[in-house]
């Protein structure tokens, strides 16, 4: 059994474990929380969050209710539009603290990848923009053009939501696969440094003459001539590298993620996160449409998205800096430091997958378009 196939199997089982874990979590939560208020007595009763969480919630609710009043006011008096936009901005900032705006997914994604805070900010704004645009497009097409009912819109949103959550899971699974391999590689290097060094040596040798027949011949003859030489090891390691080429290509190299291809990957993240429209935005848009003020609703939604982006970007930046600090601390512990960082990335990748699973199972998205 070569270390390479070991690592590969480790990565594979990791992926499975990740999937399984998200499923398990969903199930565990199902039995504890979603049993229905009758079955659980006290647990089913709501405890309103207190402290900062409660304050943020109260502010959101306050602003949200004021939005409706403000749209009505804008109908009678155009100058209320300015107030509406200001309110939408404030609402967006507070609202992003709630579920469904991708701060968890984006932050985990950034931690899993070697992303800069700058890119985190760009991703946050892009995701928020897409989210706002999706809400606008849905209401524009469904309500304004074809006169769809609220139920039809709700059903549309649900389909989009499901796609979005599946995409998040796919993103997480892919990250977990890559980062699991990276983590496995780090483990190999930490616990079997000599093997790793030889592997590196073998890789260089391979690069010089990538598995040419001549190379194999040489290897073979070498093998024959001196069975006690390290040729045996070299042979195994060459195999290792061949097997593990995938590991190495996707492994701990930050450049591969931060580089040119990184933007394409970032795009998949913002689409996965931004696809799901915010139900509050849809309600505001429909309300504005009913008042004959659709353009104002569109403006409010975009400004709301701007507010959301600021909060998400702040959280994402925090996550990136936190990781940076962890990284600096890790560097002071040679050997295990790298392992720790790879483990962290691996966990963040698993978290993206887990979030996707939880969202899909319906345990994190509490912003349903109720009763329509």
């Amino acid at each position, binding site marked *: 059994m070569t270390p390479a196939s*070991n*690592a590969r199997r*480790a990565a594979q*089982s*990791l992926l499975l*474990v990740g999937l399984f*874990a*998200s499923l398990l*979590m969903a199930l565990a939560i199902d039995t504890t929380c979603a049993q*229905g*208020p*009758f079955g659980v*007595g*006290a647990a*089913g*009763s*709501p*405890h*309103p969050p207190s402290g900062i*969480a409660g304050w*943020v*919630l109260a502010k*959101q*609710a306050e602003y*949200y209710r004021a*939005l*409706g009043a403000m749209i*009505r006011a804008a109908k009678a008096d155009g100058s209320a539009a300015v107030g509406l936009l200001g309110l939408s901005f404030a609402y967006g900032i507070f609202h992003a603290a709630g*579920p*469904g705006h991708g701060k968890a997914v984006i932050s*985990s994604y950034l931690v899993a990848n070697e992303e800069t805070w700058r890119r985190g900010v760009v991703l946050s704004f892009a995701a928020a923009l897409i989210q706002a645009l999706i809400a606008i497009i849905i209401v524009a097409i469904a*309500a304004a053009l074809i006169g769809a*009912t*609220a*139920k*039809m819109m709700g059903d549309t949103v649900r389909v989009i939501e499901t796609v979005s959550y599946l995409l998040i899971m796919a993103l997480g699974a892919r990250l977990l696969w890559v980062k*699991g391999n990276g*983590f*496995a590689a780090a*483990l*190999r290097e930490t616990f079997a440094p000599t093997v790793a060094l030889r592997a590196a040596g073998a890789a260089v040798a391979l690069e010089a003459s990538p598995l040419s027949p001549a190379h194999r011949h040489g290897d073979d003859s070498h093998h024959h001539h001196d069975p006690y030489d390290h040729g045996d090891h070299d042979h195994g390691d060459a195999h290792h590298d061949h097997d593990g080429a995938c590991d190495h290509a996707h492994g701990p190299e930050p450049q591969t993620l931060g580089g040119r291809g990184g933007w394409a990957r970032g795009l998949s993240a913002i689409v996965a996160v931004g696809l799901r429209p915010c139900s509050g935005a849809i*309600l505001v848009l*429909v*309300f504005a449409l*009913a008042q004959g003020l659709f353009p104002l609703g569109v403006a409010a939604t975009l400004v709301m998205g701007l507010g959301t982006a600021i909060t998400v970007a702040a959280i994402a930046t925090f996550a990136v800096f936190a990781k940076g600090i962890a990284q600096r601390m890790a560097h002071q512990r040679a050997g295990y430091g790298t392992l720790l960082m790879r*483990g962290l990335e*691996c*966990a963040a990748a*698993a*978290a993206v*997958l*887990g*979030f996707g699973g*939880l969202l899909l199972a319906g345990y*994190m998205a*509490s912003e*349903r378009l*109720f*009763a*329509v």
Partner: protein
Amino acid sequence: MIDRFVKSLCLALAACLAFAWFGLGPAWAHPHVWVTSKSEVVYGPDGSVTGVRHAWTFDDMFSTFALQGIQPKQKGVFSREELAPLAEVNVTSLKEFDYFTHAKADGKKATFTDPVDYWLDYRDNVLTLHFTLPLKVPVKAKTLALELYDPTFFVDFSFADKEPVALAGAPANCKVNVQRPAATAPPAGQQLGEAFFNTLTSSSNFGAQFANAAMVMCP
């Protein structure tokens, strides 16, 4: 050995992260729908409770949203018939949430069946959903606790200012007490007996809770 180590470490970390997050998750939604409720506890001729009749008035933003795509014959006026399909959708969707209505008769939970007599009316820019929740088995109870809440906070329920919970056809000795969410103090001059707190579906620290509760006592 390494495999196992990788697996368990990743699993543990992922689980911690997800659970930590989940703890914050659902409770962080703010209400998107506001409902003002007026309810009636319905009694049968023999003095047993047969069900609960609700009249829920939605806020105007949600009302407008719900009415989207429904074309009335006369602009701005929706007849009961025109709103019938929407009422159907409403009560069907509410089933999943147990109609947000939780009852205990003498400390034992009471189960409701599917709603009957449901309809919507539209007045002053808002929709009101009327429906009756029959009890699976009518009960004669000394105390009946009724609570109205959405555990996910998506819907913000509040009792109507005047007579939020009435008794329909109750024996003469029955009385109803109403408790509003913690933010609102109990109505002046209304003392809540110990029985009130003991029989609520939510056990302890009721004062801190976010539910609208009514207690019907027929000693």
